[in-house]
């Protein structure tokens, strides 16, 4: 190799190293920033009062920063979304992986993955003009902006993740398991239910966790259709406010350096911890499959 070639090689190599490490450095920087701003809040308020406080009145005097209604709001909307999207998503994954013919399989899989490309504001908008009035009418509510509406729209957003990853997991189950089951006289359903499902379970679980991660972090759609009332919800038919919507809605009006501003960062930390734990669990299961 000539001299110019060597120099070129050297620079390209370094450039790749820089690009690679930059992505990690950015993540670390974001994390440090979040921690620094958020933890400042706990100089003024105890962690216990923050997490278990039942009132979120950031602008009253004295201001109250109890994040419990927001956590419960997020949890309720997420649980509702999971109750809808897990059965539908897993059943859909089995349909695509096991039942439908190969040509249709491609069409369906692409279609469902396209669903992931719809911007969440569009999903929120569609929910607002179609689903919200429907929920209001069916349940005779004063408003259709409820946790239920949010759950239904979020279920749509979790579906692509769940279906796509669960389908991969099911397809990755070695064919010889299915053959063995059928050769023993199992019906197709018996083979799916007792053999393929068991073998694909870790992958399906990971798919569900990643779906939950997507739902918990979602902001725009829930802000548009869940009503944004920071009160502790008792049923799915009440307005709720989620952690994410709170940050998005209030960050603009919070004065930089105020307690309110730091409290929103503290909410961010909670959100970060929740999504980190969920992704971490999903990762453990995904790695288990690779082994």
């Amino acid at each position: 190799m000539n001299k110019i070639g060597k120099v070129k090689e050297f620079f390209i190599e370094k450039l790749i190293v820089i690009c690679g490490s930059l992505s990690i450095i950015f993540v670390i920087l974001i994390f440090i920033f979040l921690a620094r701003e958020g933890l400042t809040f706990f100089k003024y308020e105890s962690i216990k009062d923050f997490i278990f406080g039942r009132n979120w009145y950031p602008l009253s005097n004295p201001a109250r920063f109890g994040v419990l209604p927001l956590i419960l709001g997020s949890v309720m909307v997420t649980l509702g979304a999971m109750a809808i999207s897990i059965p539908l998503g897993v059943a859909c994954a089995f349909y695509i992986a096991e039942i439908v013919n190969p040509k249709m399989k491609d069409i369906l899989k692409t279609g469902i993955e396209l669903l992931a490309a719809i911007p969440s504001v569009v999903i929120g908008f569609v929910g607002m003009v179609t689903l919200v009035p429907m929920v209001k009418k069916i349940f005779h509510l004063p408003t259709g902006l409820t946790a239920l509406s949010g759950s239904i729209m979020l279920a749509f957003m979790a579906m692509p993740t769940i279906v796509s990853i669960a389908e991969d997991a099911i397809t990755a189950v070695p064919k010889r398991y299915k053959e063995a089951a059928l050769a023993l006289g199992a019906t197709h359903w018996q083979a799916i239910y007792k053999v393929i499902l068991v073998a694909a379970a870790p992958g399906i679980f990971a798919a569900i966790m990643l779906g939950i991660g997507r739902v918990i972090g979602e902001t725009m759609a829930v802000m548009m259709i869940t009503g944004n009332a920071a009160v502790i919800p008792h049923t799915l038919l009440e307005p709720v406010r989620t952690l994410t919507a709170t940050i998005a809605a209030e960050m603009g009006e919070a004065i930089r350096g105020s307690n309110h501003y730091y409290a929103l960062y503290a909410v961010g930390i909670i959100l970060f911890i929740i999504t980190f734990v969920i992704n971490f669990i999903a990762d453990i299961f995904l790695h288990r499959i690779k082994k």
Partner: protein
Amino acid sequence: MNINDCFNCRIRVENVNFYYAKSQALKNINLDMFNNNATAIIGPSGCGKSTFIRLLNRMNELIPNTNLEGKILLDGKDINAIDTDVVEIRQLVGMVFQKPNPFPKSIYNNLSYGLEVKGIKDKHLIEKRIIESLKKSVLWDEVKDRLHDNALRLSGGQQQRLCIARCLAVEPEVILFDEPCASLDPISTAKIEELIVELKKNYTIVIVTHNMQQAARVSDFTAFFLLGELIEFGTTEKIFTSPKNKKTEEYLTGRFG
């Protein structure tokens, strides 16, 4: 004297042609397999032996774009007839595959699966059948203390005997072996062969094998396949000592294949 007169024909294959999409894998096969005998199917790779044996319990249906012509009769009944239940056929005609394929479950659950699928709920009966079939497949002494261990922790040979036990638990009458020793070491192979010799007292056995010595050791009848055609069929002794067809002789003496 016709051999059909001396033996009880269990499976009769009549004028069978089989196609993968447009390529013909089997050409006009006529073959009888007899009760309480082992029939070996031998031939070079790609001659259609695996395709043939998988027709006998309708496993080829899992492959799209295939086409079958002709009849396959089990005890005189067409297994591909519209009113024949494929599940029933597969319970009567068990199969052991080339690569050991236990489920990723415990040894016990591997064996109970086929019984549960059959609708047997009685726990005592299930346990009795499991023990019986493990004893029949000569695996009982090796696993009796760890029935609830994951089956994937067994050695390859043990896994294959587990698959045989799993197949026996469903009480089939015919057992198909598709190169059952292809991925096993010589000692495990010897054990499986012994087992097949033992099993043929009570079952009808069809075995596909690459290994001609194995065919000679375990089978009573041998069919030689070449390029999708049945070249020669007869008692194993005859095929190996005085084959009529020149191609059979060339294959057996190692001139090709």
